[in-house]
């Protein structure tokens, strides 16, 4: 279903609401739908080239332009092998 078809369907009930306003509302609705369902998935990689580095922003990964694009991470591989998730507490502040 194209955006235009959605806008026209909505405007059948609400002819006074403009395209820009409806697009804004559709995008907010997409935010809600994405966060509820997490339907779309992807993989992305980053090369490990710097030693003594632990933290990677999601934008360091190929194809990710905004941290907001990542809803959740459920698996991480290092050199194609799955690594475990650390679930403990990091007591020292660590931003390396």
């Amino acid at each position, binding site marked *: 279903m194209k955006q235009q078809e959605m806008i026209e369907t909505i405007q059948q009930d609400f002819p006074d609401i403009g395209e820009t306003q409806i697009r804004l509302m559709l995008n907010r609705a997409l935010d809600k739908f994405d966060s509820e369902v997490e339907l779309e998935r992807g993989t992305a990689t980053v090369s490990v080239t710097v030693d003594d580095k632990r933290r990677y922003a999601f934008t360091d990964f190929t194809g990710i332009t905004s941290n907001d694009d990542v809803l959740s991470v459920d698996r991480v591989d290092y050199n194609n092998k799955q690594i475990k998730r650390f679930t403990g507490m*990091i007591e020292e502040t660590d931003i390396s």
Partner: protein
Amino acid sequence: MTQVAKDFDWPTNDLVYTLRDYTLVVAKWDYVKDKLTSLDSSELTTGDTIRIHYAKKSLRFTADLTASPSFPSEFHEAPMYRVLQQLHASKGNVQQALYYKAEYKECVMMAKKYKNRGKDDSNYSINQHSY
């Protein structure tokens, strides 16, 4: 410990990841010091890569009116139903608002079923256990 990144056994306990402050932390667990430590240069090799498997946002609408949502077509009505629900609610049309809310919820339920069948490449399995 040397060459952890290349030679660790599966499953490994010493190389772990966690998420903090919206960043990914990949580090070794130091059993002696009870802390996470970075891989050092002796443990890195050219070509080492980290890959994440993640749930991502779908595409957002722009001025291109011919664009469609990037998720499967059977759920395209979901955002439209949500907008109709909100607009009818704002006008006090309770019956219509409830109708579109139900339609939206059905789309969400169907999409969750679709996802759990693995058609979106995610893994969903139930491990068998004996008691």
